[in-house]
Every structure is written in C-alpha cells, then in structure tokens.
C-alpha cells in the first residue's frame, strides 16, 4: 500500500531538475547578445551619451572641486544646457536596451523553427525561458557596469579626486536599481514576445507601453486625481488627499519609481521622495546629507517595487510560455 503510494507520488512529480541545461542556454544567449549588431549599435549609443554628458559635467564641476563631498554623484546628475544629465538619458536608454534584448526572444525561436528542435533535447521549458531572461539581465548588467566604471574612471582622471567609500556604495546601489529597472522592461518585452507571433508586433507593443508610461501617464494622473478627489471646499485635508492620490497613481509607473530611487541615492541631501508637511521638518537641518542607510530606507519601497515588478512580469511570461502549444 505504502509502496503504491510512493510510486504514485513519484509518478506525479516530473523527473529531474527544471534547471537542467539552464547555464547552457544562458551562455548561448549571452554570446548571441554580445555579438549581435543590435547590441553594438546600442553600446555605441550609450557610450556616446555617457561621454557627452560626463564631459559636460566635468567641465561644469571643475570650478567647484573640493567644495562638494559628493562629487562623484554630481557626475551622474549634473546637467549643462543643452544636454540633460546622464541619469536623465538612462531613464529612457535602459528601457530601450532591455526591449531590444528581449522583444524577439521567444517568437524568434518560433519563426526560425528552432523551438521544437531545442525542446526535443533533454531540457524543460523552464530552462529555456529562464536562461533567456537571465542572459538578457546579465547582458544589461554588463553594459551598465562597464558604463559605471567608465564614468567613475573618467571622474577620477578628469577631476583628480578619488571617490569615497560612501560614494561608491551609493553608486553601486544605483547600479542595482538600474539593472532591475531594466529587468521590468526585459520581462515585459519577453511577455510580448510570447504573446505576439511577429517580433515587429512585440517590439511595437513594448514601445507603446514605454511611451505610455513616459509621456501619457503623468498627464493621465494629472487629470484623474482632481476627478477622483475633487477639492470642493479648499480644506487642507482635501488638497492633501488629492496630492497623495496623485503620487500613489504616478508611482504605478516604473519610471516614477526609478527616478525617485535615483534622486534619493544620488543626491544625499534629499530627505523625502513624497509629500512633506512643514511639521515633519521640525528639527531637521536642511541641506545636510543623509547617511547611506537612511537614504536606502527612504527608497526601500521603490527598490523592492522595481524588483517585485520584474519578478511578477517574468511569472506572467512563464505561465504563458508553459501553456503555449509548440506546433506552429
């Protein structure tokens, strides 16, 4: 009886690990990414952007060297007309790279008719999808890390001031947040590459979502908040409620989350990313920088939000891919 039960349990569970072959897929996909013309173009684009903005920032900062304890951070955030700061560019370069890495990841296998041949090998579908996602994330992390190192190097050479430990720690956290901000768009592009059979359709859908959050979301939130929480009598509570709703809605966009993380990490003097009432500022010494762990506490929800959204979108893609019929 127990033997039968054990046998039944063994039969119900699939044999082997779902991760068999995962690293083979990761290695192959990363090699593809790193040698593709598409990535070359994006790399040139991002290096040029970084060079331009950082050069402008160094020129601007050379006069104030020695006055600012967070010089390295300024490299990322200093803007000089007509160029915006490097972080401003990152806000839309990261989604662009992430989308370019993943929009044809699954439907490309279908259109090249390689999917059935690959899945006929002793691996599970999990390994293929996870491998593709990880390869995209690693590639993104690689590109961003290289840029990060280049900028720090340029800063040391250009200004002659070595970065402090706190600055390095802050910019490393910023790097992590950037990777997961990219992770959201990577996972989204992957979901679309599973849903749509044509890579072009998937790419367009990704761009549409990205445009929606970059351009229209703020406008929509600006219109929706007064409608949902109208200010009828002009009381403080009403105005506060409306502002809070507006903030909550705008935080549904990954762009908002990322820019808040960026703000708190790269500008240590920032004490709040939400609404601040005068009473809350009682006793605060304005203009003094927060220690790193306080800045992290400030944007912890945003950071976990970025990571959670990445995982959630990947899970959606995972379920869709598992249910997908292999025959074209």
């Amino acid at each position, binding site marked *: 009886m127990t033997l039968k039960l054990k046998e039944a349990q063994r039969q119900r569970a*699939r044999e082997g690990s779902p991760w068999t072959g995962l690293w083979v897929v990761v290695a192959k996909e990363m090699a593809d990414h790193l040698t593709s013309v598409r990535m070359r173009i994006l790399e040139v684009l991002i290096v040029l952007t970084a060079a331009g903005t950082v050069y402008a920032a160094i020129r601007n900062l050379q006069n104030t060297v020695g006055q600012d304890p967070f010089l390295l951070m300024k490299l990322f955030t200093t803007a000089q007309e007509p160029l915006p700061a490097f972080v401003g560019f990152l806000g839309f370069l990261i989604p662009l790279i992430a989308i370019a890495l993943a929009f044809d990841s699954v439907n490309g296998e279908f259109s090249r008719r390689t999917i059935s041949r690959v899945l*006929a*090998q002793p691996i599970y579908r999990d390994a293929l999808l996870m491998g593709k996602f990880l390869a995209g994330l690693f590639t993104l992390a690689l590109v961003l890390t290289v840029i990060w190192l280049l900028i720090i190097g340029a800063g040391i050479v250009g200004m002659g001031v070595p970065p402090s430990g706190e600055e390095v720690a802050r910019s490393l956290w910023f790097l992590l947040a950037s990777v997961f901000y990219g992770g959201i768009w990577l996972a989204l592009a992957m979901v679309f590459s599973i849903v749509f059979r044509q890579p072009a359709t998937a790419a367009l859908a990704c761009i549409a979502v990205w445009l929606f959050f970059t351009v229209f979301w703020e406008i929509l939130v600006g219109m929706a908040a007064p409608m949902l929480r109208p200010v009828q009598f002009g009381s403080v509570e009403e105005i506060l409620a409306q502002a809070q709703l507006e903030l909550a809605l705008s935080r549904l966009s990954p762009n908002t989350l990322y820019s808040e993380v960026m703000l708190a990490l790269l500008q240590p003097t920032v004490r709040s990313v939400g609404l601040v009432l005068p009473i809350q500022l009682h006793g605060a010494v304005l203009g003094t920088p927060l220690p790193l762990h306080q800045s992290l506490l400030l944007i912890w929800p945003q950071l976990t939000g970025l990571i959670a959204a990445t995982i959630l979108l990947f899970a959606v893609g995972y379920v869709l891919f598992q249910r997908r019929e292999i025959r074209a």
Partner: protein
Amino acid sequence: MSELMIETHGLSKRYGDVVAVDSLDLAVRQGEVFGLLGPNGSGKTTTILMLLGLTEPTAGSVRVLGLDPARQPLSVKARVGYMPDEVGFYDELTARANLIYIAQLNGLSREEAARRIDEVLERMGLSEVADRPVATFSHGMRRRLGVADVLLKQPQLIIMDEPTQGLDPEGARGFLRIIHTLKEEGITVLLSSHLLHQVQAVCDRVGLFRHGCMELEGTVTELAQRVLGSAYRIQLQADGPAPTLTEALQQLPGVVDVQHQGDGRYQVAAASDLRAEAANAVVSAGGRLLGLDVEAPSLDNIYARYFEEVEHDAEA
C-alpha cells in the same frame, strides 16, 4: 526483437472542440521503420509531439521506450531523436556551432561533443561546410544537418516528421538511403509522410491516418489485400475467344476479378503473383499468350482507393 519501442492506448488530443487525435492505439517494434500516412491535418504531427512529451495528451496513455513522456520527459528526450517537419537552425551560427549547442543541452562533455560532431558531420557529408554559417546552406543540406543533429545524441529511436518534404528527387533518394542505413544499425524509425512511394520504399509497416484515427495498419501487402481486395494486378494480353479465356482465368484459385479491357487485354486481380498459373490457363484454354506483366501493390493505389471509398461512404 519484438520489444515495443512505442506503445499508445486510447491516445487522444482535443483542442477545444476539434479532435486532433482520436483514441489512437499504436505499437512500433524495435528495429522497424514505421510510416504514419495521411493527409495534412490528420493528426500525425500532434501524435509525434505527444510521443515526445511536447504536448500533453487529453486522454490515453503513451509509453516510449517503456517510459512515460509526460512524466519522464528528460529520459525520453535523451534517447529519442526528433527531426521536425521544417527543421530550423540558428542561421547566423555555423553548422558546428549549432551542433555544439545541442550537444551541450544533452550534457555531453567538450571532448565527447567534438568527437561526435566530427563523426556525424562526416557521415552526412557536411565536413567541408562545417564552419560555414547555416544561412548559406541549401534546403537539402539543412535536412542532412537535421539528421546530424538527431544522430548526435546516439538515439535508440528516431522520429521524423515529413523528412523528404521539399527535397528534389535525388535528395529524397539519398535521404531514403540514410533511413535504410539507420535501420541496418538497429535504430527504430518512425516517420510521417504523405509522399507514398517513398514511404513504401523504406517502411516495414505503415499506418493510415484520417481525422485523427489510425484506420488501417500493417505491411503494404496486407493493406493492399484489405483495401483493394487483392494485392497483385496481372496485365495479360492474349489472342483467343474472350469469354472462354475470361472464364479460364476466373477459375484459377486466388483470382479475385478478371476484366476484359478489349483488344485482347485482360486485367486479373489476384491475392498473389499468379503469372505462371495465368499463362498456363490461357494456353490450356486455347489462347495465344502475347504479353504478361504484374503490378506489385502500390501504396498510391491503396491510399487513393481507401480515401475514395471512405469519402463515398460518408456521402452515401
């Protein structure tokens, strides 16, 4: 030798209301070449995908090499080679790089993979183009690379979906020779096709598919006897009184039907090759034998006749 490589019982697959495969009972023995025949959309590819565990059956049971492909897919896929109907490769990679990826997915060591890849490329006559991107390959070369890819894991069973589709006659003949050599090595082959004379040339047994059911199964000769009522058609030309000759031929044991087609030509349908007996009968009946020929059973005839009959029944 009679060990079953593939065994299905009541295997069914439904997509919503559409029945793709309807309670299929299939048995393929070790070392034989089995052909799945049927028009497009008759459920051949769906059956193959279920055998590999790439699609879950709606009902019924499957055993491939004694394993359940839905529960033990890794063991099944490590031992079974599959060549899809339109085999695709990563065009920007070389033939060798494509095979290396597959070898790694099969968990082969670097040395073992390199050795086996050289071996299968050599065998398929692709050694010289091994380091060219697959994008430059012709259709026939892609097919051969597909076989190389399948052989890489040294399978016990090879499943091929429409292996000769889109090949020129010479390429198709070459491909059938490859299947012959696989059989000689003791590898069991299951192939699907609608190119009948090719299937006939290479398969030990065939199964006729229609609307998701395997309606007929057996050797080509068996099918001919069942569908045509007779496996052999003897063309005979003789001078002499037609009614007498016709009667003489009809009285031969094993003759099913005799038709006088005018001008001294007769067509005799028989269960076996009765040329000698027929010649004897004509001569004894006082006729002068002018010509004698036999037409072996052709799958084309069986197929055409069978589906004709079934359509006819459906309309009636």
